[in-house]
């Protein structure tokens, strides 16, 4: 429907654009960015309450949610755990988010994390006698490359054959898990004397050092938060810069928004798809490396603990923007940390968190639903990202 412009144009005020105008040229709709997500989280928690009611009775609600809250936010130990658990979520969330920006669905973060975590571990225990300042970055690079390979494959298939990355990444997840099962039984990988699937321990020089060790707390082991958290924040800045300040990021966003126009503008759509998937895979690989080089210190089945799937929720909640992803990751980290405490201290299992997260996605992806529930007025969005099975 073409509009009929009746009046002469209003000119933009002269002068340098403010930093808000630069970061978010379309303006920030506070309702959409802050209020709706908050309401979504709240509503999801309320619905979760009903599940507790149904399975354990009304008496279980307060202790459960109390444990959830205190496990996430109360005390240095909780805060350390929250930030610790948010670290891989930041990285995996960035992985999914950068995919979304290019119009691609990276459901394969779990598999990419697995392969990346494995390669990092292998470099972590097999390269001996070099100082930490080289060993750790080396292992991280290996992790990045491993994940990048696992992201490259579906990207390549999508670019060259049109095979939709939703199916191929999910299949590669399963393949990655089986591959890990196999590798963790190889004698070269297994520690001496053990026959269960588990890798050798990573050398000290490749482990992330703890950063809150100097804080006085009860308990022998001290706070577990490590350097990985700062690395993740730094990576978020890098992703922001790539997406919004670099030429390649402009191409990613154009291909995601309209591949026809991108092609017309001279961009290589196939090239962008491959590059984005590889980069996204690498980011997820870093997330996996964070786990194996951080708290765990080795690789064992299940070390990815559904982080890749949470990452999808994160990316949506954070609107595929690095800043949003970081904040959402911290929220989800809080839910995980609190959830563990909840599982230990109350009768309610940690799977409740999964339900809450799914509900959060529903409410985020259907903002009109939240608006309808709370009668918030606002803009018109569709969540349209998909273009069907082929480009």
């Amino acid at each position, binding site marked *: *429907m073409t509009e009929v412009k009746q009046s002469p144009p209003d000119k933009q005020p002269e002068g340098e654009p403010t930093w808000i105008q630069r970061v978010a040229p379309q303006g920030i709709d506070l309702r959409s960015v802050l209020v709706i997500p908050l309401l979504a989280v709240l509503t999801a928690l309320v619905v979760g309450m009903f*599940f507790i009611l149904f*399975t*354990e009775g009304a008496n279980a609600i307060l202790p459960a949610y109390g444990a959830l809250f205190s496990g996430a936010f109360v005390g240095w130990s909780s805060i350390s755990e929250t930030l610790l658990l948010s670290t891989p979520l930041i990285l995996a969330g960035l992985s999914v988010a950068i995919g979304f920006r290019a119009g691609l*669905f990276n*459901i394969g973060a779990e598999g990419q994390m697995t392969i990346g975590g494995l390669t990092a571990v292998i470099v972590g225990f097999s390269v001996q006698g070099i100082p930490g300042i080289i060993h750790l970055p080396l292992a991280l690079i290996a992790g990045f490359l491993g994940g990048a390979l696992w992201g490259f494959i579906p990207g390549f*298939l999508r670019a060259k*054959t*049109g*095979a*939709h990355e*939703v*199916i*191929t990444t*999910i*299949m*590669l997840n*399963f*393949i990655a898990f*089986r*591959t890990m*099962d*196999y590798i963790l039984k190889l004698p070269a990988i297994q520690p001496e004397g053990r026959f269960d699937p588990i890798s050798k321990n990573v050398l000290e020089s490749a482990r992330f050092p703890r950063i809150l060790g100097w804080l006085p707390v009860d308990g022998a082991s001290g706070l577990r938060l490590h350097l990985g958290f700062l690395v993740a924040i730094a990576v978020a800045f890098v992703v922001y810069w790539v997406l919004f300040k670099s030429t390649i990021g402009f191409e990613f966003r154009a291909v995601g928004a309209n591949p026809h126009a991108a092609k017309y503008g001279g961009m290589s759509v196939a090239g962008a798809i491959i590059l984005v998937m590889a980069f996204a895979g690498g980011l997820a690989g870093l997330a996996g490396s964070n786990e194996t080089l951080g708290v765990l210190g080795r690789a064992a089945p299940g070390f990815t603990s559904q982080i890749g*799937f949470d990452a*999808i*929720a994160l990316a*949506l909640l954070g609107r595929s923007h690095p800043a949003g992803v970081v904040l959402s990751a911290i929220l989800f980290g809080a839910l995980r940390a609190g959830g563990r405490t909840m599982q230990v201290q109350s009768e*309610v*299992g940690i*799977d*409740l968190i*999964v*339900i809450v*997260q*799914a*509900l959060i*996605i*529903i409410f985020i*992806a*259907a903002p*009109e*639903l939240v608006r309808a529930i709370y009668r918030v007025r606002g803009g018109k969005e*569709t*969540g*349209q*990202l*998909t*273009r*069907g*099975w*082929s480009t």
Partner: protein
Amino acid sequence: MVDVTSLADKPALVRAPAEVRRARIRGIVYFVLAVATYVLLASTTEGDVVFRLGDAPGDLDLTLSAAGLATASAVVFGFLGALEIGRRGLGRWSNIALSIALALFAFAFLGWAAAGKSLSLVGMLEGSVAAATPIAFGALSGVMCERVAVINIGIEGMLLTGAFMGAVIGTVVNPVGGVVAATLAGGVMAAILAVLAIKYRVDQIIAGVVINILALGLTSFLSAQILVENSSAYNNPGVLRPIKIPVLGDIPIIGRIFFDQNIFIYALFIITAGMTYGLFRTRWGLRSRAVGEHPKAADTLGINVFRTRYMNVIIGGMIAGFGGAYFTLGSVGAFNENMTAGRGFIGLAAMIFGRWHPVGALAAALVFGFADSLQVKLAILDSGIPSEFLLMAPYLVTIIVVAGVVGAARPPAADGQPYIKE
């Protein structure tokens, strides 16, 4: 197919058309397969393999030389490769050729692994049908939804929900009640998907992913909280017995595979036939397909696009829910967390492989089921291949299929796009 003759008298071609290039790639793949089969399989094995086709050993046996089988397969692959390159593509037959090639490769592989032994081929085929069943239900559910242009990634979640409800209600009430509950549960999940995708215009893939996460979370949570502790009260439905159809069930080979199975397999065939007839012969089918191909045109003719989509998606969900009950009531007999293990996604691949046609989807599901069954057999035969790689087989086949087939097949034109009435 490309009509090459009209280009015969043109100046030198600067570039071959896309279809021809794709055919060349397929041809090369076939040649590589031929060489690999010969080198890796034919020349490294000796002895005979006995394929048992009857119920008892010795009834109906097919004895083949393992090396001979592999060599013959290699020749066929070479032939297909020559066809693809020489005739610049096989058009509609390329999918069928690919299926035949995969099946043949599987046989050659089996022969190689079982050289000097015997194996029950009938049992394997029976197992294929069983393995194909949940995939086929997923594929049919997908066809139902995608024909009205709604992509349903949530089939995995619907299968899982159906499995759960089948187990629980099957224990608390009875197996039939379990099946009914499973079907309804699938419909409910599909209704959520439909509301998100149609009314709120959430991206359909995201809506599907949400359904999967929700289903996983719900079933895992309830399983851990309730089922694990009270399994005899809530998670003990038993398995529905196979029912043999008189006369037909006695036919050698085919009878055992197709006519001596439980009700899920029979339902599968009935649903496939019904869907085919419905989609292509009835008013409902024409209108549904119109909604999927050109919703605006359907709208201008007074067809209610939204209602058609809601209806078909919910029916699709019910089919998936019903198929989910197969996991618990038709196969394992109890619910385990995340027991669907990707079958819903493989079902989507089967739907694409089957070109969005119910019969094609069923046939494609049988191919995937065969791959699954093959992997089980190879593990039993102790073939020397690590079990982890065998377990990967269905997923690898899915990737191969999806990469080799997409682009040639055309989904319903409006697939994935929400309908916006201005």
